């Protein structure tokens, strides 16, 4: 069986490597062309319309810049000095989810002109204009959870994602999953919050975690049970390690730092019951607590709630009926 699994994984691997699409060039994104500086304001009196020079913008295959001969109409060395300029090839920014063709038609100045600027005082898109129009109420790049993918293909990491964001992202993700979804898909969460074994390639658990994990488990610095089922994961491993008990192990001396641990374990158990459960089954506890009351602080209120919702666990000890319920 194990050989078959290994073979299956190897088959999928080789298939993936062998028949996947042709690899893309590993070079970085195309460089934005450097356009020789052109003063729109200096030419404002001549060109009062964007389309006079940029008529191809928004047209499939259209030219984004005027032909050089158009400039030479004036810059012919007689009327005006000649200029050494050739129209650059239009190269859309590969990190933008934007093309002029696909964007709803808006006035050019909506993006290319700052509010209050003089006529023809235009230039590269004003990012704040994009944010305002798309309802993004935060500064560019420092929004705690901005919908980056509205504009970007590869979203710059939001400002909030620095520092210890990985540790405290839970509430933000839970309160506004839509913001996360602008860059992440649902299953991204499962890369770390997976209900199975942690993968070393995801790097969720640090090196030496096998040795240090009892510390985190006891202190609940990480909520182990949100990703690992205690039975499937903790007990399974502890059985193999000889730590788990199903036969009154409490009396055998594993907790040998204190000879009286079995009779004085109550406080430790109430403080770290999840750790106890990682090795002990219910029978270990019921064996003694069948006759020794295990109920603690606030039990009266809790007991009523449990008994009304699921009394089957109560009947494990209260075989003759649950006290106060009329049954015993």
């Amino acid at each position, binding site marked *: 069986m194990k050989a078959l699994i290994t073979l299956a994984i190897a088959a999928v691997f080789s298939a993936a490597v062998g028949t996947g699409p042709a690899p893309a060039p590993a070079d970085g994104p195309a460089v934005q062309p450097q356009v020789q500086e052109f003063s729109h304001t200096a030419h404002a009196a001549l060109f009062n319309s964007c389309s006079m020079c940029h008529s191809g913008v928004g047209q499939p295959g259209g030219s984004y810049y005027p032909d050089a001969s158009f400039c030479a109409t004036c810059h012919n060395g007689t009327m005006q000095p000649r200029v050494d300029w050739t129209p650059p090839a239009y190269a859309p920014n590969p990190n933008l989810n934007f093309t002029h063709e696909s964007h709803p038609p808006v006035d050019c100045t909506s993006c290319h002109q700052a509010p209050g600027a003089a006529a023809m005082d235009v230039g590269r898109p004003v990012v704040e204009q994009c944010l305002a129009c798309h309802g993004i109420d935060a500064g560019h790049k420092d929004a705690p959870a901005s919908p980056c993918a509205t504009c970007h293909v590869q979203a710059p990491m939001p400002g909030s994602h620095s520092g210890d964001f990985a540790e405290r992202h839970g509430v933000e993700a839970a309160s506004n999953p839509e913001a996360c979804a602008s860059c992440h898909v*649902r299953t991204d969460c499962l890369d770390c919050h997976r209900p*199975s074994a942690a993968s070393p390639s995801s790097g969720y658990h640090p090196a030496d975690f096998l040795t240090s994990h009892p510390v985190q*488990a006891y202190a609940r610095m990480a909520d182990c049970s949100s990703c690992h089922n205690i039975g499937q994961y903790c007990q399974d491993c502890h059985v193999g390690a000889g730590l788990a008990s199903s036969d009154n192990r409490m009396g055998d001396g*594993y907790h040998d730092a204190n000879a009286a641990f079995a009779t004085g374990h109550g406080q*430790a158990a109430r403080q770290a019951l999840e750790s106890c459960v990682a090795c002990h089954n219910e029978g270990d506890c019921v064996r003694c*607590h069948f006759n020794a009351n295990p109920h603690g602080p606030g*039990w009266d209120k809790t007991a009523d709630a449990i008994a009304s919702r699921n009394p089957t666990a109560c009947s494990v000890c209260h075989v003759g009926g649950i006290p106060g319920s009329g049954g015993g």
Partner: protein
Amino acid sequence: MRRCFVLGAFAIGGLIMASPLHGQGWQVRLDTWYMSYAYRGYQLDSVPVSDVTQASSGGFESSDGFAVKCVPGAAFCTYFPPSEAQRGNPLWSTLEASLWGLGIQGLSFRMKGRVGTDLSSPTVWPASEPTVQLTEAYAEYKNNWLTVLGGRFHESSRLNYTGVDGAKIDLFLFKRGLELFGYGGWGMAMGAPLPVTSPNINPLDQFQPQKRQYVLGGGLGWQLSGFQGRAIYQREIDGNSDQNYLFSERAAADLMWRPVRQITLTGGAEYNIGIKQWGTADVTVSYATPNRFLSTSIGWRRYRPFFPLWTIWEAFSPVGYDGAWASLHVWPARGWELRGKAEVFGFDETETASPNVTVANDGWRWTLGGGYVGLAKWRFDFDYHAEKSIGASATGWYAAITWDAMRKLMLTGSGGRLIRPLEYRYNDANTWNAGLRIDWRPLPDIRGMIEARYYIEDRNRPDAAAINNWEQVRINAGLTLYFGSGMDTPSLHPAILRVPNRRSE
């Protein structure tokens, strides 16, 4: 036989998926990893009372020097010597696939599953059964105001991971400013891609439900300017009872408020209706300077464990604790980062005072670290931590140097030490480790890593159960492949590539 069939289908499916499809959009991520590691547990042993002598410490020990525990009247005394080293070799492959653009705008299919095993015999790695595990597989339809999905999916919230075989519907109203959602179906076990009835999640043969539970949940979310939140209610119903007994009934809410650009307030709480007690809760205030000089957070959190009502554990009245913490990140100069975090916490009253065993009621922990990334191809990191708590005291440090040799290859050398005294077992663990990791990215859609780490471990005890200088080498290796439509865009983050339609618009 059935498993072999499923496994074969999985492999064949992988082969098919690896060849170009004609759907408008499809993506596959194949994440395979292998580990080799060893550990030494304990094994229960015993000696006749006649072979036991009284040690100078006052306790009893066997003739070969093991401290033993003798119960008056018993013929044998017991002890836990270290077991032989066990080496596990888990090999697992996770396949994640998405398919969309099938003629209906907004329709997509998604799945995430694992296949693998522990190559060692007997099996050592936990959760190695079953060998095929399906985490998610669902069809989803999405438009601007509605999302509907059906199949196996999970719901992640403050109530933790809830797996469901069923359906979910989301309605988005008022320009997506208000979300109403509901879901239902047959539930999975807590934190497992398996039903609660599976024998694989019950290795100690505890009490176990005979039928799967039904899950019903719903809630709402809202997005106002600077104020966002989500509330959820979830009920798990015992599928085996005619009286509609419950596995759990809980509600939770999460809020985020950003009064000004640099300050974020987040918080939330869970109320366990089934036992009429508050569960986990926390409040955090974060501040970051605009120029990325400083980032700090302070917070309060409460932790209380959650146990389903089909178990008996709530009858033992587990208590929670309250903790206050603060963290600070400072970038004092270009390339430098300093970080620190500290927390103090205290448990609720347990009403279990016993003169026999002394247990701490509170604890503390702190970490301090830093890094330097000012050189073009180098990164340096160092962290020290110390904690003192019930069952969880430890000190240790970790240091790493990363050489980004070229864009496609990165080497990391690291090492650390951990000193971990055990509170309830007479045993002080002490480990040193040093390792080398190689990260390799020959193409944008292929990522690999391999790490070898050398360990030395001591378990200090004043008897023959001590372990000195136990050595081992642990190996981690992983290979992740992305392929599908849209994967020919260089340097894009995988998270972006996996958003359907992101590149096809």
